[in-house]
């Protein structure tokens, strides 16, 4: 598999502090990768750097073999979408208008809305299951519905790479399942999906591959089962992880015990 998105030895500072100390990662088309790690490991910084929003002091990010800085902004946004936790602004926008702003990289400041734009918006609304909410205002939605609207905006960009920063945060279990099911659909269409996931159980059940970030670099990578069983994982989180096979369940259930003194 050739990498769609690839980061090599990325070093990124924020507010004078080195957050990423040489993080590397590669992502192929149709792959679902969960980025996990303890608080302050640099996960959000990593996805923002992968999206080209943060400058690196050294290292390189390549998208389709081309360094990010060589991509024109709008072309980049047509190829790669980033969905971050809702910042709460633009509350009086309707869901449809919010999602339609995802067409900005295709339209630029002046081109008017075409049938193709309309179709992409419609498809994103349907795929995320929020078509019935299309004319509601964002401020009247629940946190889960808002998260789905943000995801729909990302899908309206029709990207080949989708990056998500904690898409499941603040969601109840039903909405979480719905959201990850949407991500599975997206991946089946050949989109590479990388999501920062806090809940290790959820991450293990969803992803093909797990990447563990600790102290600003990748300390373990591979199948969820291997990563969660690794010493790096125990060290990174300061817990002991045990996997339990449960008859009838396709994946392991995990239990966590504090191993810090």
């Amino acid at each position: 598999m050739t990498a769609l998105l690839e980061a090599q030895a990325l070093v990124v500072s924020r507010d004078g502090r080195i957050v990423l100390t040489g993080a590397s990662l590669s992502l192929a088309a149709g792959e679902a990768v969960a980025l996990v790690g303890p608080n302050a490991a640099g996960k959000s910084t990593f996805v923002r750097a992968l999206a080209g929003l943060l400058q690196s002091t050294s290292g390189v990010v390549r998208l389709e073999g081309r360094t990010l800085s060589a991509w024109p902004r709008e072309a980049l946004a047509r190829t790669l979408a980033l969905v971050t936790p809702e910042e709460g602004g633009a509350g009086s926008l309707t869901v449809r208008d919010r999602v339609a702003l995802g067409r900005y990289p295709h339209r630029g400041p002046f081109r008017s809305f075409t049938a193709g734009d309309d179709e992409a918006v419609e498809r994103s609304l349907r795929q995320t299951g929020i078509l019935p909410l299309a004319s509601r205002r964002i401020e009247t939605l629940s946190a889960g519905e808002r998260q789905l609207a943000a995801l729909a905006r990302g899908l309206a960009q029709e990207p080949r790479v989708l990056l998500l920063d904690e898409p499941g945060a603040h969601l109840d279990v039903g909405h979480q399942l719905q959201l990850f099911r949407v991500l599975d659909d997206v991946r089946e269409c050949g989109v590479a999906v990388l999501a920062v996931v806090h809940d290790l159980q959820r991450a293990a059940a969803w992803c093909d591959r797990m990447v563990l970030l600790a102290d600003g670099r990748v300390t373990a990578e591979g199948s969820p089962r291997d990563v969660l069983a690794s010493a790096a994982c125990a060290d990174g989180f300061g817990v002991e992880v045990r996997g339990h096979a449960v008859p009838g369940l396709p994946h392991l259930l995990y239990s966590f015990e504090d191993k810090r003194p």
Partner: protein
Amino acid sequence: MTEGRRRRNVLLALALALPAALALALAHGSVPLPVGSVLSSIGSALGLPPFAPPLEPSAQAIFWTVRLPRVLVAGLVGGGLAVVGAVLQSVFRNPMADSGLLGVGSGAAFGAVLAVRLGWSAHVFLALPMAAFFGAMAAIMAVYLLAHAAGRPSLQGLLLTGIAVSALASAGTSVLLVATEEFRVKTVLFWLAGGLEGRSWPHLQIGAAFILPGVALLLGLARPLDVLALGEDEAGSLGLPVHATRLAVFALAALVAGAATSIAGSVPFVGLIAPHALRPHVGPLARHLLPAAFLAGGLLVILADLGARTLSQSLDLPLGSLTAFVGAPYFLLALRANEGRE
């Protein structure tokens, strides 16, 4: 009612109310003029046949040299301030933002007082508005440069820098005021209170030269503005050059607000309440909100100026006080409603 229909109704109501307010403001004043004759007079200037008895020569003079330009200036200033308010509210993602945040008002005041203190305004035509305009521009530039001294600033950083620069300009204004002869202080106090007394065609021309292109360009940036309102990360990830766009928007907003303030002095709350009141009805998209805000702001200041001219028999009330009398209670109610919702 669907969003679209509600939006159209609001725009229609504004588009109908504006000419009505214009007619009202043109007819009323210290010398009442018959509405029919006023409209007929405008019509014949546009080449239409007269349909009402003509104005008397003295009334004709009042209408053409005093009242018409003053009412048009009011509409222009109000429209400009409301558009700037709408734009800054979406860029700062704060429904209570206003041009005051960027130091426009206090910079303009400093410039105006300086022009009066140095005696320019007594000798040079339009020296006071010009100085006010340059004061506003200088304040905004100071805010921008200071905020960028330590790299690209956050919105919070810009906001706090604006407050600091405003305080500095106000301090300078106070020092200058104390050092100015008493008879000159009165000129500047009138200007600081906000008002359109004596504003005529030259003011309208200067105002129009800055405000209309500024508003038109901001309207041209409608879509980037909508993207910018999503926040820095999301706007950047959608391919918008966030800092360049923000800079262009601030420069245009400063130009419009600076021109409006230099002509009319301080006219508070228009930029705040017009877009704030409209947003729930026309939605936050700039291509809908900006035109509606322009109409509503114009309407508001035309009516406020009408009140300033006619509420008291003996004197012109300060326009800025009137907009504040209406705006401040609205602001407090909106604040309370906002907190009630949270």
